[in-house]
């Protein structure tokens, strides 16, 4: 992976100072701390999925100016994520997350850099503080606040309610908002969870779990109802990401291995299904909406709504199973949100417009991936070591 970073950086940014520095850093890091770097099983799957999505986007996206730039950026981001999640400690992870967040926020020429960087930076601050409070500890209250900070940091890092940036954008999404919620975020959060969980005492874990589940529900409802009430497709897509992340948070917050597996599955779903579709929707959103839906759109709607046999359904199935074994009213609340979920799926699918033939192949592959996640979730989970 580090070799990849070196290569990419060298190829792309030979002319810049940053390129040399990054290449040196990656090389140095690889040589010096080599033994400390290890990629966990679930991260391997996630990184492979990210790479596959990047390839998919490169092959099947309708050609548009700036696509190459975005793809190169994505490749570099992928490499940095790999570096971050394979690093030796949480601080290493935090440092690279900051760099990634800053780079991601710098994507796109418009303003708003500071707003975009705000949430991840605060996330890193809170994770660092939480880590410190738990490590120093000595006092139940302090440790609980530490666990709280870790959970809030996770939520802030992913840019979710209540830490998300303002969702008012009209028109196509910027690459920055795409990349963070749908591409880099999932892998980073997965890395965070793997580093945080083993160090929590039961008392701290309780706080961490409660906060994540609570904010997960908040995000789930905010996403579902926000998308439901949105008219602008771009806004609707963002809310749909938030809803998906809500499921992830609940899964990660339930703490049982099975539930964390659900979170992993949902994150994979975001990366492999929602993210590419969102990328392809950006072009269609710019053009006036079409009447009616094609068959492909219907299938996509079903996949986005979490219908069986697509990915979302297995996530819902396993999540409800895990939730009800902890506390069944939680499962009931989840069901309410899931029941309202399909309300916006058809409009999302319509916002994709009629894809050109090349992109239609991409749709097919995404649907196939979603099908695989939905039909054999057990296989995907066991690949990830859950």
């Amino acid at each position, binding site marked *: 992976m580090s070799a990849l970073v070196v290569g990419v950086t060298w190829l792309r940014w030979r002319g810049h100072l940053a390129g040399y*520095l990054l290449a040196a850093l990656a090389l140095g890091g690889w040589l010096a701390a080599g033994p400390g770097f290890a990629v966990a099983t679930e991260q391997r799957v996630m990184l492979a999925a990210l790479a596959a999505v990047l390839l998919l986007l490169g092959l099947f996206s309708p050609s548009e100016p700036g696509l190459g730039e975005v793809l190169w950026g994505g490749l570099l981001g992928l490499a940095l994520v790999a570096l971050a999640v394979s690093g030796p400690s949480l601080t290493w992870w*935090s440092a690279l997350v*900051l760099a990634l967040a800053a*780079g991601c926020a*710098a994507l796109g*020429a418009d303003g708003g850099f500071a707003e975009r*960087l705000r949430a991840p930076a605060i996330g890193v601050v809170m994770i660092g503080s939480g880590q410190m409070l738990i490590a*120093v500890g000595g006092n139940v209250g*302090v440790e609980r606040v530490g666990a709280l900070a870790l959970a809030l940091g996770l939520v802030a890092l992913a840019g979710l309610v209540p830490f998300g940036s303002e969702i008012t954008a009209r028109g196509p999404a910027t690459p920055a908002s795409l990349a963070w919620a749908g591409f880099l975020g999932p892998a980073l959060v997965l890395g965070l969870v793997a580093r945080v969980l083993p160090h929590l005492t039961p008392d701290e874990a309780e706080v961490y779990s409660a906060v994540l589940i609570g904010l997960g529900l908040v995000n789930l409802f905010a996403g579902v109802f926000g998308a439901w009430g949105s008219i602008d497709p771009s806004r609707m897509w963002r809310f749909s990401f938030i809803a998906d992340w809500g499921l992830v948070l609940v899964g990660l917050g339930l703490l049982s291995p099975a539930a964390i597996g659900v979170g992993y599955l949902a994150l994979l779903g975001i990366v492999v299904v929602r993210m590419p579709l969102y990328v392809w929707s950006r072009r269609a959103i710019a053009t006036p909406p079409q009447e009616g839906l094609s068959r492909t759109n219907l299938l996509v709607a079903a996949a986005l709504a979490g219908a069986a046999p697509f990915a979302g359904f297995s996530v819902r199935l396993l999540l409800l199973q895990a939730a009800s074994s902890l506390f069944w009213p939680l499962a009931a609340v989840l069901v309410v949100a899931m029941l309202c979920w399909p309300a916006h799926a058809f409009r999302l699918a319509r916002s994709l417009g009629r894809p050109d033939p090349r992109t239609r192949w991409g749709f097919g592959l995404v649907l196939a991936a979603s099908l695989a996640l939905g039909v054999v979730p057990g296989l995907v989970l066991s690949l990830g070591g859950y």
Partner: protein
Amino acid sequence: MLILEVLAVILAWLGGAAVLLSSGRRGIALGIGAAGLGLGLSEFAAGAGEEAILVLLGALLAAGLRLRDGGRGWGTLGPGSTPGLISALAALLGPLLLAVYLLPGRAEPALLCGMVVTTLGAMSVMATGERQLSLAGAALVAFGVGAMAGPEAAIYGAVGATLVSMLPASAASRPQP
């Protein structure tokens, strides 16, 4: 040693506050440098010499990178910076109180430095809408979070700060990392 530790905390605070209260490249660069020096000193006082040097190196690098673009001059304590000043004071007092009352006997000076720098960095990130200051704040956060986690982690923090600082402060068409 005590003097060194107190000096480190004061330097770190002054540096962070300089970042928070500046809008020019010189003020910001100086702030980052000072904060890094403070952190390095605290590591040195804790007996981690190599780490201290690396952190200092990172701080110098980050400061140098910040010096290359963005708003010109010092821009320190411009008009309307009273809330910033009060926040900066709170950023010193808050961690101090935390260290004294909630973590009695457990907070090393390096940890205190880290807390101060992190708080100031977070404040910069939260308060500003400008890219230059936001980047500087993120760099401070990276330094501070590293320092809070221990000597070895402080190096990672410095690496992160350097990486963040590589980004240009203007939204020109420079490639992103």
